[in-house]
């Protein structure tokens, strides 16, 4: 467990010193969402209707921006070899890196989302559910994305390949995230959607670190 937090602390420190990644992700999120009123016009009804979808799709794309760097820099400077040779299960080390990724991308997105929801005239009933859906959805994005990041390691143009691999896997998170918000706005219960999101998160939490660890071992062979 000590080793887990040691890796989290180190990745957070790296993110803090380099700074750019988190800022870039949130800026991309804000800018893209702000483009929509320009693109589809300022009518309140239309914006309100698309707000949940726009926020979730953009958050999903934004969280992918920094994903290819999750293992790439460690791979290039040799740190990854040493992380693999740590006397702890590799899954634990990988899970720590995924947690650090979520803390530096998913969490800032979650904080920014309600502000942007105001901009898109989302109904007030949607706000708590938006936060809940983001809280359950963004960790899943970091977990599933980590598998992709490990798989494309060492590939040329890994970033593009990563999007192609990972975007289809993000679809369930998108469907149930938007479904939950829409249900709440229309006065129905968002609970079933959120439970499914939680279920996806639970499954990803168990499987993603080990799948990712296997892919990393392959990449280093």
């Amino acid at each position, binding site marked *: 467990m*000590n*080793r887990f937090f*040691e*890796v989290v602390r*180190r990745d957070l*420190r*790296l993110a803090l*010193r*380099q700074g750019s990644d988190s800022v870039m992700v949130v800026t991309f999120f804000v800018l893209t969402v702000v483009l929509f009123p320009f693109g589809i016009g300022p009518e309140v009804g239309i914006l309100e209707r698309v707000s949940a979808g726009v926020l979730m799709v953009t958050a999903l794309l934004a969280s992918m921006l920094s994903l290819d760097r999750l293992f790439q820099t460690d*791979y*290039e*400077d*040799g*740190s990854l*070899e*040493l*992380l*693999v*040779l*740590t*006397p*702890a*299960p590799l899954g634990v080390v990988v899970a720590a890196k995924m947690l650090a990724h979520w803390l530096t991308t998913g969490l800032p997105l979650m904080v920014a989302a309600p502000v942007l929801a105001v901009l898109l005239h989302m109904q007030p009933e949607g706000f708590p559910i938006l936060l809940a859906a983001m809280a359950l959805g963004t960790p899943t994005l970091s977990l599933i994305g980590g598998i992709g990041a490990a798989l494309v390691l*060492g590939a*040329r143009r890994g970033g593009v390949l990563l999007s192609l691999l990972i975007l289809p896997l993000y679809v369930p998170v998108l469907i149930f995230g938007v479904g939950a918000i829409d249900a709440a706005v229309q006065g129905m219960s968002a609970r079933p959607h959120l439970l499914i999101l939680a279920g996806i998160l639970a499954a990803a939490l168990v499987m993603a670190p080990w799948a990712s660890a296997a892919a990393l071992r392959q*990449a*280093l*062979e």
Partner: protein
Amino acid sequence: MVPAMSNQGSSTFSGTNLACVRGGRVVFAGLDFSLDSGGALVLLGPNGSGKSSLLRVLAGLLRPAQGALAWNGALVTEDPEAHAARTHYLGHHDAIKPVLTVAENLRFWAHLHDPHAERAGRAVDGALERFGLAHLSTIPGKMLSAGQKRRTNLARLLAAPSELWLLDEPTTALDKASIKALEAVLAEHRAGGGMVILSTHAEIDLPGAAELHLDRFTTPLTDGIDDDFDDEGAAA
């Protein structure tokens, strides 16, 4: 789990009938070796003869195509974490984060290897001192020269205790004084019951070290294939 340095009696690290295949080509085959506590093994051979590959196999980064590694008679593959705990691997890359200071870089690896934080903290200071890095400890990694980076990476060996050191060309970019310091550190490690396996093209003084000529286990190779081409090819 915690590797005790001396007073644990003698250990033996051995490999039997090891073979390595890279990219459909046999790098070496039928390789045997055995090393006891305090021993040293120098891997010799031209570029492409599989020195780096062998060290990666010994570290557990690469699965041998054939053969097995054993520690005191027990198969290494049965408990890879115990093997990782008693092993330090030093590869071609220095694993130095440019935005972390020398001490932070070193402390991270030491804590990861040995979670007893306080003990690791003292060991880090000693390791920095030993490789003449004490005055650089607060300098960020990006300001270091190639030789200073290598010394920081070497200091990792002392920052957390391990019985088995696998060093892939440890003298690269080192000046003469640093090579002398490394030789002294290696001698001390062996006197304390540690083992060293290293590959080198440079002169390094390792009294009583056994030599393993890898070209004897190699099928004929095309000239000009570098032994680290797999790493570089993947990264390019």
